[in-house]
């Protein structure tokens, strides 16, 4: 369809000057990470008894989960709404979500004081805790993402397993295993796809519930009982912009033409979703009369205004313009703004809005915290690049389109 073939591994050189720079950033992050595990949180972070959560939770976890929303939004569009046209973007979005959630889990472990007990929520349950809900959902969803990715692994390796040396004895059994797995998954994949969407809706919203219990410690511009709904809506609204952003970056990086016919249609859907989010955000502000806090100029009011104007209203206007959605630069900038808006929102909710009653000096992330955060992003980029070179993820334009057997995966 549309002249795209079935997805296939990209054949390019892995290392380019850009990749070497990113690798350096990743290595620095890894070194700091090592230091954190050896010397403890206090040695690396600026966290304190006043500010127990910093950017590792606010950005690495909360923003990371939001930006991985492309996975479940495209799954809903492609598989549940069954819009065949968008199948080309499902695999890249799935891979992004998979890597994103893997790094969310790593970030959580990094922030936990007793990281080796990360499995405790599996056996010690507290149904009252929003964090318990988030933890369980993220764990299960991560597993679902890996299951959703398995058919891609099967596609890549069935009939092509060729282990070196003595291991070649395993070639046949492994091939058989993959074939069984492939057949079983083909029939049951819909269970996991729907589960993935439900789990995403649940924990995307519960991430918003997290800060509700902080009560008056959180600035009234953000503290509201509808936080879960706002978090869910903002996650859904950043899903497609994130897909557009990544698709254009990877097209550029691999020297392909951007898939504008798909991306334009995707961009047309962002406007209405953003509008609903904006309506709830403003409606909440009006009902709670929290706009009175915007009359004075301080960090909170400035940050809130930037979040709303630059991150929601401007991209909303852009996505509603027929001219912008047809221009590659237009949708790229608009998508960047939506991502920036959600970045600001999570930063504001978890860090800027958090005002503990006894704070001696404000929390500013340490260089070590920033190095780890950026390092994680760099590692994710490298793994994405490696994965699309190993697995059939990205569809290349123009060529014969052989039929594939994944009806429910819908890869044409």
């Amino acid at each position: 369809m549309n002249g795209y073939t079935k997805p296939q591994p990209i054949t390019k050189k892995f290392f380019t000057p850009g990749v070497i720079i990113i690798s350096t950033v990743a290595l620095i992050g890894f070194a700091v990470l090592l230091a954190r595990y050896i010397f403890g949180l206090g040695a690396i972070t600026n966290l304190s008894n006043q500010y127990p959560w910093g950017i590792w939770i606010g950005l690495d976890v909360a923003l990371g989960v939001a930006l991985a929303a492309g996975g479940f939004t495209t799954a809903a569009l492609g598989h549940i709404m069954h819009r065949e046209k968008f199948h080309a973007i499902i695999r890249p979005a799935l891979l992004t979500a998979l890597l994103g959630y893997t790094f969310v889990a790593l970030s959580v472990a990094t922030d936990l004081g007793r990281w080796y007990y990360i499995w405790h929520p599996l056996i010690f349950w507290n149904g009252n805790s929003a964090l318990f809900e988030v933890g369980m959902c993220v764990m299960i969803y991560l597993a679902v993402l890996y299951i959703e990715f398995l058919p891609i692994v099967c596609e890549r390796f069935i009939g092509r397993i060729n282990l070196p040396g003595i291991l070649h004895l395993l070639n046949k059994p492994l091939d058989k295993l993959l074939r069984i797995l492939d057949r079983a998954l083909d029939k049951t994949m819909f269970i996991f796809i729907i589960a993935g969407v439900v789990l995403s809706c649940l924990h995307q919203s519960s991430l918003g519930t997290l800060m509700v219990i902080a009560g008056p410690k959180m600035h009234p511009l953000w503290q509201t009982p509808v936080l879960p709904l706002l978090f869910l809506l903002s996650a859904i609204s950043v899903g497609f912009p994130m897909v557009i952003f990544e698709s254009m970056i990877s097209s550029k990086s691999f020297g392909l033409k951007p898939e504008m016919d798909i991306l334009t249609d995707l961009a047309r859907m962002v406007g209405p979703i953003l509008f609903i989010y904006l309506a709830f955000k403003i409606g909440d502000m009006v009902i709670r009369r929290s706009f009175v806090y915007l009359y004075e100029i301080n960090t909170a009011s400035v940050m809130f205004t930037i979040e709303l104007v630059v991150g929601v209203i401007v991209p909303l206007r852009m996505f509603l313009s027929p001219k912008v959605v047809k221009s590659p630069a237009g949708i790229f900038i608009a998508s960047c703004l939506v991502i920036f808006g959600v970045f600001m929102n999570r930063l504001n909710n978890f860090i800027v809005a958090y005002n503990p009653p006894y704070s001696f000096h404000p929390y500013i992330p340490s260089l070590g915290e920033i190095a780890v955060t950026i390092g994680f992003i760099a590692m994710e980029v490298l793994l994405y690049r490696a994965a699309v070179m190993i697995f059939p993820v990205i569809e290349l334009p123009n060529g014969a389109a052989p039929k594939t057997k994944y009806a429910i995966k819908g890869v044409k």
Partner: protein
Amino acid sequence: MSKQSRRDFLKTTAIATTAITGLASKKTKAEGRGVYLPDKAMGVLVDTTVCIGCRRCEWACKTAHDMPTPPLENYDDRTVYENMRRPDYTSYTVVNEYENDDTGKFPIDVKVQCMHCNQPACVSACIVGAFSKLENGAVVWDESKCIGCRYCMVACPFQIPAFEYQKAIQPRITKCDFCSARQAEGKLPACVEICPVEALTFGKREDLIQVAKEKMRLYPGRYVDHIYGEFEVGGTSWMYLASQDFSKLAFPKLQRDPAPGVSESIQHGLFAYFVPPIALYALLGGVMWLNKNKKSESEEEQL
């Protein structure tokens, strides 16, 4: 995950949830704003107009919890009052000093420790249920469960739980445990026992409220008309009397609603018997099925 095990998971969570909160929340509703507490719920009434700031409670607390402490004489040094201190892993309780509005009178000393809320935010928030509210009113932390996520610190309205950031292995959440071990042996909390001026009164929470009201009646003008902790965040085990407004003594201004109230209502609303998630699952499944059928029908027409 198979359907069956998923359902089991749902059921267990629902039961666990009901078991943990069910009783407390139902009673709360029945009694309106009030709080359900067992008869054994103990508390401490702190009379800040009596406290002389000798900090013997700090010493007794550390001694009772086997924490390193300087000798008792060192606690006479009043220069520590120059900066506000907060409880942390080195001390579960600290005394701070504030200027008296009534010039010429002695400054006001305020002992700070865990308030042992009737409906504690930390108990509700903790991802693994490492915090629990005991029958005697104490809120205690279970080292064997804690994963060190510090959500309790985000949740606590009094900013009490502290964390051992300097430790790479087995960092603890530290806070006053209301001397649970001593109480179990029939002893008073260490701070109450040592207080030389009886600024701290230990007793049943309900009785303490009566004591506080009686004090206010007997000494008109000595106290502001406010027992801090009687109603704040649904009531606390530790309560305070003072001669001036509590906001001037660095007490947070809090509403009467229990701290976990809104969060728990949202949580239980979203997961009421797991109906919403299952309904969403069914809805999405239906939509998927319809769309797929529509698709294959139109394909057949084309053929």
